[in-house]
Structure formats: structure tokens, C-alpha cells
């Protein structure tokens, strides 16, 4: 998939761990892992809203489109 979810960069900037993020967002570690490893097929708007709120960022900061050749 060409959409990349860059959670690591924002986590590093905010000095937050994956576990803290999963607790703040309210989703399981396995789902966070699915997001992080790029296996996710879809993301709910409310999840994106919760992630952006937790990381204090814009959706464009964590979503990137890189065309695969």
C-alpha cells in the first residue's frame, strides 16, 4: 500500500512510548502494532482523531503517500 503511517517520528518528538499512546488513544497494542507495521487496511476517523489529539499533531504529520513502482 502506498499510504505510510509514520507514528515513530511523532512518538520520538513527543517522547512517548507505544504503550502510553495505546492507553491514551484507547486501542490495543496489537492494533497499534498493525498501524506501525503498515498492515492496516483502514483507519477509523475517530481513531485518527484520537491519535492526533494524543500526539498533538495534524493528520498530515503521520500520514504520507509514497507511490510504489
Amino acid at each position, binding site marked *: 500500500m502506498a499510504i505510510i503511517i509514520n507514528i515513530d517520528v511523532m512518538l520520538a518528538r513527543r517522547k512517548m512510548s507505544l504503550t502510553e499512546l495505546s492507553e491514551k488513544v484507547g486501542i490495543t497494542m496489537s*492494533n*497499534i502494532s*498493525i498501524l506501525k507495521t503498515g498492515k*492496516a*487496511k*483502514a483507519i477509523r476517523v475517530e481513531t485518527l482523531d484520537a491519535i492526533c489529539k494524543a500526539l498533538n499533531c495534524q493528520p498530515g504529520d503521520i500520514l504520507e503517500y509514497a507511490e510504489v513502482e
Partner: protein
Amino acid sequence: MRNVYVYNLNVINMKLNLLNYRIVNVVINGAIILFIVLLVVSALPFMMKSGTSIHSIGSAGYSISRSLKPIDSLPSDTLSHGKYMHFVDSVKQSRNMKNGVLSSWSVSAGFIGAVPLERCEECSIWDDSKLKVKEYFISLNWWTLDTVGAIDPTKYYVKGGEPYLRKVVCKPEPGKGNETFHCNEVDIPVPFRYDVSNKYMLIPVSEQIVKVLRVVLSCFTSLLILYFLYYIVGGFIKFLMEIARGTPFSDRNVRRLKRITLSFLLIPLAFFLLNLLMRIVFYRYFTADIKLSAAAWGVLWKAAVLSVIFAALYFAFKQGKKLKDEQDLTV
């Protein structure tokens, strides 16, 4: 208006996409190939016509002459009921011995089998086997004798080790067109043998071939039964167990349904086509009196119906799994 036009195009696209499913294509192509093969085989030029069939007589008048000796002795009119039944039974036993009875174990695998018979002209099944002639045959279980005759049913019998068909043959009387027929009873020698009780065709072969075929068919039948029990019955039971466990839409379930669908589709089809191939392999033994039995069609259509049902389940569960995966990978 443009939105309605675009909606209609999308609906048509969805319907066309359904038609592109591979298994549906395989089923349709398989049916077309089978139909063509059946047409070609039925039109093959080694059918010997023997007289006029019942359909061409219709409501026309006919005369019949029965000049041949009866195949078996007929009971006297003066016999008591008990003696009559005893007589009929002994004639039947004698006829079975003349036609041939099973001498040892036979093996059958669907459309083909290996059959050893023994026969004799004037003895019973309890007599010493040294008096009997042993003969060996391949049985073609899905080919049977067409006993529908012009007036009387066609009868098969063996005399002096040679097989015959007794049938009534009708020909139009000269000078009267198709209004009146003259019918004669005739004995026609045939190249095949026939099992009257089980109603299948027998091809004479050597003892060695029957011995090898018995082993091969036994192994093949055992493997087929094991495959059926493990993959079809066992597969279906495991499928139900996974549903009971709460994980119906899994890769394994989808694979099981696909395997069951293809088994019900391909195995009977292969048997049917191999059965038709037997007609080509043993073409010298086939005459116009031999036809495909109802058993062959029965196996095919029953398996086809099961295949369609499991194919529907397969498509449904495949779609279900796809939706489940999307749901599982939606964060």
C-alpha cells in the same frame, strides 16, 4: 440522468465481474466440453443397425412370425402352482449357469470392474467346478443393454459359450410403404457378454488381466474411500467445528470448501469421461444395442448438485473472510 446512467453502468460492471469468477468459468467450460464429447461419441460410425425400431412402427399394422426355438424350456399348462414355481426356479438357475455366474470375488470401482465367471451348459452351481468353464471379464458398469424392442423386449442369452441377442426385427412389407410391417424373431450374435442380474456389459479378457485389475482397482477404491473420508467427510466436519468455535471465516475453512467443491465437480466428471473413453477403447465390442445406463447420469447430476451447493458456500465464505480481514485490519 447522468447519475442514473452511471449507476446502471456500475450495476452491469458488478454483474460482469461475477461472471469472471474462475470456478464459474471452469464449470461452464467443463459442461461445454462434456457436451461436445458426448455429441462426438454418440455420432461415432461404429454402430450396427439391426432392423427397425419401435418408434418407426408407431400405429402401423404388423405381423410377426416366431420360428425360433424358445431360449429356455417352457412350463406345461397342467403343472400345479408348486411344481410350476419349482420349474421356473430351476430354469432360471440353469439359465444363470449357462450365461455365467460369479466364480470368485469381483472388484468394482464406479464405472469399471474385474469379474471372473464360470459357466456350463448342463450343470448347477453345486456341481464340481472342474465341469465348469472359467471366463474372465472387465465389467463396464455404466453401459447396459437396451432391452426396448419393436414388440418384445430384447433378450440376452449364451448358448454353447457364444452370446446372442434375441430380438424382434421388423421391416416394411414390400409394396405397402410404411403401413404394414412384417416382424421376425432373430438371434443376433454379439461380441460382448452381459450380466443380466446386475445389468452391465462384460468384455472378455484374460485371467492375468483380471488378476492385475483386481489389485489395481482394490488399491484405487481404497485410496478413493480414504480420500473421501478424510478430505470430504472429515473436511466438512472440521468446517462445522470451526464454525462452532466461533471462527467460521478462516483460510482453512475456505480451502476446505474449495477442495470439497472441486472434488464433487472433478471426480465424477473424470469417471464419466473415462467411462466414455471405454467406449472408444473397446469399440469392437459395442453395438447399437448398448446404451449409457441411468446410473452414470445419476452419479453425475447428484455430484453436480452437491458441487453447486458447496461452490455457493465457498464463494460466500470467501467473501466473508475478505470482509473479516478488512474488519480485523481496520484500526
